């Protein structure tokens, strides 16, 4: 437990002594802020048109903040995460392998598990900070409108488990190579694959399509944005996270045997 905490602290600190965390967080906030502005501006325009033209109101059906602002906002944030998270995870093992520090780390009296969990939660902490900063967007909505609070909370829960899954996969990619670019590229590729695969579920036999869309991120995320927390989705993410953590441990171990 103590070793876990020491590694966690060290990793978290090194995110902020190098410019990585600042750059990633800044760009993340700029892009998500831009999307938020666009969504709100569109919503305002439509609302204004609806007040003078009832036909527009009819066309959009329910004109409420949750449907038109909150849900797309979470969708957009998750896409930006897809692009940003590999940049946070790529260095976690690659850098230690490249500089050789892994040799010292693994000859200290620590277990691989403590090292892995320390790194995982340090990255998760940076990610949580990013999420907290995006909290300004729903806060503005609450101040100037009446969004439902439920979907906002479950939406954040969805982003949190999604982010943890991204980190788990990203760390796994990082353990594969001592080259950070390769680690990031593998993570991007795998994440996009898990993201997009549900698209092909409509093209194949329905029974296979169901499996495909279960494996993909997309469907599980949608429920959260609607304000529904389903244990099935939680289990999906938990299994995803544990699977890639387990694979990372195996990679660390096999590195030792290969020498």
């Amino acid at each position: 437990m103590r070793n876990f905490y020491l590694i966690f602290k060290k990793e978290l600190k090194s995110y902020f002594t190098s410019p990585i965390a600042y750059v990633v967080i800044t760009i993340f906030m700029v892009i998500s802020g831009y999307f938020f502005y666009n969504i709100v501006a569109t919503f305002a325009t439509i609302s204004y048109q609806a007040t003078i033209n009832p036909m527009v109101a009819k066309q959009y059906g329910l004109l409420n903040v949750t449907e038109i602002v909150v849900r797309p906002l979470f969708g957009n944030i998750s896409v930006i995460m897809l692009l940003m998270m590999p940049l946070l995870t790529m260095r976690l093992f690659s850098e230690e392998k490249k500089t050789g520090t892994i040799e010292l780390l693994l000859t200290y009296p620590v277990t691989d598990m403590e090292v892995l969990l320390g790194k995982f939660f340090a990255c998760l902490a940076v990610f949580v900070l990013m999420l907290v900063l995006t909290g300004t967007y729903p806060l503005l909505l609450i101040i100037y409108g009446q969004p439902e609070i439920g979907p906002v909370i479950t939406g954040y829960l969805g982003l949190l488990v999604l982010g943890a899954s991204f980190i788990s996969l990203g760390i796994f990619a990082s353990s594969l190579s001592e080259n950070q670019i390769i680690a990031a590229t593998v993570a991007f590729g795998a994440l996009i694959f898990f993201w997009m695969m549900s698209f092909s579920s409509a093209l194949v036999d329905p029974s296979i399509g169901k499996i495909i869309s279960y494996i993909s991120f997309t469907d599980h995320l949608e429920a959260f944005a609607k304000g529904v927390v389903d244990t099935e989705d939680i289990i999906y993410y938990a299994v995803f996270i544990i699977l890639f953590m387990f694979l990372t441990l195996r990679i660390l171990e096999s590195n030792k045997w290969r020498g």
Partner: protein
Amino acid sequence: MIEVENLTKNYGSYQALKGISFTVKKGEILGFLGPNGAGKTTTMRILTGFFPATSGKAKVAGFDVFEEPLEVKKRIGYLPENVPLYRDMVVSDYLRFTAGIKGIKKMDIGDRVRKVMQDCALTDVSHKLIGELSKGYRQRVGLAQALVNDPEVLILDEPTIGLDPKQIIEIRKLIKNLAGKRTIILSTHILPEVSMTCQRVVIINKGEVVAVDTPQNLTSKIYGRNKLIIRIDGPSGDIQRELKTVRGVDKVEVKEVMSGSVSEYIVDIKEGEDPRRWVASQVVKNGWGLLEMRPLEMSLEEIFIKLVTKE
């Protein structure tokens, strides 16, 4: 303290270690000598638990490296060859981190870190980033992290490589001061380092132990008979003929023709004789110039090359 028995290590089809055995007694400094690629680093990595051996046994402080790696890791300090350190950490933070992770109690960490920074002369740079330090300082930080838990066993892989002569002397002094209650294995391919710091030498080549002895014994063992080197100004043929007649001299050979009439000769001496004074008087009697005379001591370098190049 350290027992290594029949250790082998394969990297794919390449056999890096072909059954190495040696022991190190408590408080001893063992020099681990060999050319590049001999298997020094591999052996050290096995001892520190970084990776396991293919076969064989290794025990450190009574604990098997493969069965109880955590117990072993608690008791060793390791300095890898290229001194891998976290460049984005401040020296004192880094040492606090290693102290913690090596199991020093929280309340003792401050004292331990201060002590080890003093021992390694790091106090001046304690607030600098490791990445900004010179090679010599980084080496000392590496040594400090190995020492921070006051380990029973120190394993140092080429601790003086890439340092300037002054720094080398400092590090060697530091290592010598550490001896006594600690057991140290030190790998190097700089031979004077071994004769200066180590009590015993293990020479390995191509994954095999070729010699284990004290530096002094190694020198005399290979050297065998005594030889003299003499530099004389005079006619070479006469000198060889005349010197052979001197009492105690077995053989005279020209080693090297220097400038003009000056040459260097190697004189083999008969067992138990010391013909130096007679050689000198013979040279003077003939009116030649005696420029230099010294016993030929094989340096560790020559022994080493002899050991690792012989078939």
